């Protein structure tokens, strides 16, 4: 493609994925003028909607609900075939009948985050004031805003207290925020591969991704949906860069090494000679087909702003003061994006607050993505922690 070409929308987010923004293949709850969402940025968001999936059945005592919080590029399709990509749900390793988060026993809820693009109000949703996609007119949202919205979803579902809130990465940030904002609504919390604040290094990676999106001429200052373009190259580069941070040196080496892609020797060009290049290009392309570029800006920004201690006088322990929630934190040895040290900082704060906390570091070479992959030890710990919580609450 020649430089300056306008990307034509052959497999556009505009159609399949864009359709999900307002009318998702999910349950949707719409909050009207009577139920505005107060935002950390100031003002209210109203009307707005939340798209969510549920698995399993709520018991009569309403005591078996588990909320899953998804990561940056995730969505509500945790344990079902994805309506846009046709791929399995992102947490089918852990969630399903007979699995550690057992949908035969528990009522599992997964909602798309505020600022997302799969049916919860985000920048690709139609702004009722203009009839056009919000774009950058949507106020910047925070992790706390996301969690506030989720609490309204639970009110709507008539669930006073969750048996557990579980999530990894950005999902883990939401879990921590849940435990801090609504301790009485969370019996057990499982923040995985996460941190109580986004590090300078992680903010830096996000900034690279956002700059890649915004440097794409087809981004059109965020108005690409209105102008009929799509910043595909920018978003793909953002995803490629981010994807490296989700893996480890070891897992990249094990998967690709220096192997060449469908060729016998170097081409002495800038083609994707190496398998790892081809893989990253594919990851970038696939992402663009299902994810909105502006959502990428909003959701990465929400993570950057996350600093739970800052909301509690700079002392993380104060966020969990008097908490009766039981916690289980998990980190992975090769995760250099959200390190074991990040998890330990949360554990120390929970100890200082006197909270009941478990912490396990899982030996894995799969990097940050390990929490989404088959890791037997991680599965066993999740099952044990959830089962113990269920026993304590009296869930069959």
């Amino acid at each position, binding site marked *: 493609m020649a430089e300056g070409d306008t990307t034509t929308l052959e497999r556009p987010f505009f159609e399949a994925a864009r359709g999900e923004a307002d009318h998702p293949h999910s349950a949707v709850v719409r909050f009207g003028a009577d139920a505005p969402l107060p935002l950390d940025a100031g003002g209210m968001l109203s009307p707005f909607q939340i798209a969510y999936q549920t698995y399993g059945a709520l018991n009569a005592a309403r005591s078996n609900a588990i909320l899953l919080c998804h990561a940056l590029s995730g969505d509500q399709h945790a344990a079902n075939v994805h309506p846009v990509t046709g791929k399995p749900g992102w947490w089918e390793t852990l969630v399903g009948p007979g699995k550690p988060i057992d949908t035969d026993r528990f009522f599992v809820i997964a909602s798309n985050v505020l600022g997302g693009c799969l049916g919860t109000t985000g920048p690709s949703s139609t702004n009722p004031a203009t009839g056009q996609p919000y774009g950058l007119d949507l106020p910047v949202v925070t992790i706390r805003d996301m969690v506030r919205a989720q609490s309204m979803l639970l009110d709507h579902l008539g669930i006073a207290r969750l048996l557990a809130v579980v999530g990894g990465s950005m999902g883990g940030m939401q879990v921590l925020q849940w435990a801090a904002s609504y301790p009485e609504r969370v019996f057990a919390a499982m923040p995985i591969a996460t941190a109580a604040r986004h590090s300078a290094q992680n903010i830096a990676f996000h900034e690279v991704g956002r700059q890649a999106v915004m440097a794409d001429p087809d981004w059109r200052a965020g108005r690409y949906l209105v102008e009929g373009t799509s910043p595909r190259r920018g978003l793909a580069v953002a995803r490629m860069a981010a994807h490296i941070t989700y893996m480890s040196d070891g897992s990249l080496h094990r998967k690709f090494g220096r192997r060449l892609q469908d060729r016998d020797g170097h081409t002495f060009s800038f083609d994707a000679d190496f398998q790892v290049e081809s893989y990253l290009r594919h990851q970038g392309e696939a992402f663009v087909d299902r994810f909105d570029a502006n959502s990428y800006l909003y959701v990465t920004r929400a993570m950057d702003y996350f600093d739970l201690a800052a909301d509690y006088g700079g002392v993380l322990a104060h966020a969990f003061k008097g908490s009766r929630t039981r916690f289980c934190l998990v980190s992975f040895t090769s995760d250099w994006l959200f390190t074991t040290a990040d998890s330990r900082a949360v*554990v120390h704060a929970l100890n200082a607050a006197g909270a009941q906390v478990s912490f396990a570091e*899982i030996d894995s070479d799969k990097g940050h993505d390990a929490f989404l992959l088959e890791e037997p030890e991680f599965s066993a710990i999740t099952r*044990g922690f959830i089962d113990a919580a269920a*026993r304590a609450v009296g869930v069959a």
Partner: protein
Amino acid sequence: MSPRDIAIHDLTMKEAARAASGKRVDLLLIADMVAPGSRVLDVGSGDGELLELLATTRGCDARGIELSREGVNAGVARGLAIIQGDADLDLADYPDGAFDYVILSQTIQATRRPKWVLEQMLRVGRRAIVSFPNFGFWRLRLDLLVNGRMPSSDNLPYSWHDTPNIHFCTIRDFVDLVGEVDARIERATALNASGYPVRVNLPWAVWNLLGEQAVFLLSRGP
């Protein structure tokens, strides 16, 4: 001070019978020193055997710290509250008086800084319970005397160059350490080679010979 000056704990027949059921006697002794319903931190909790015992038989809010990844993962998978951590470092992160009891079972000899660990235990907990293998046990002394080699036994199976146990002590050494950290001995029990308490009130020197293991309940202050 001799053992006569403190409350000597003894196993009742009923408890001895429980011990025959396969539970470690030292763990039963420790559990027996813990008041029901207390908040307990077990430092070096292994796979969580004592935590489970405390939770199920004493109704305790029992938490653990364990160094080995395998131990932590096994315990957490059984629903216990265990943190992967290092006694030599992580006790500093707990606030004063966070627990009623802090327990160190068969672990003090493996710490790098036993005195610091004991001080931290008595800071974090109102009471501390410590069990350890007694290097003053007559058989170990005899072993060294006769064979001229570092003793090993069923309880101490490691060779000198490949052992986690870097700070062995005798009962008398431990009593000295208790004095150094200004703690008070509330109860003490020595277990003989059969795993049963040394029943009679005898001077420390005799305990130090006859006890293969010892269990001490300590509190703050002289």
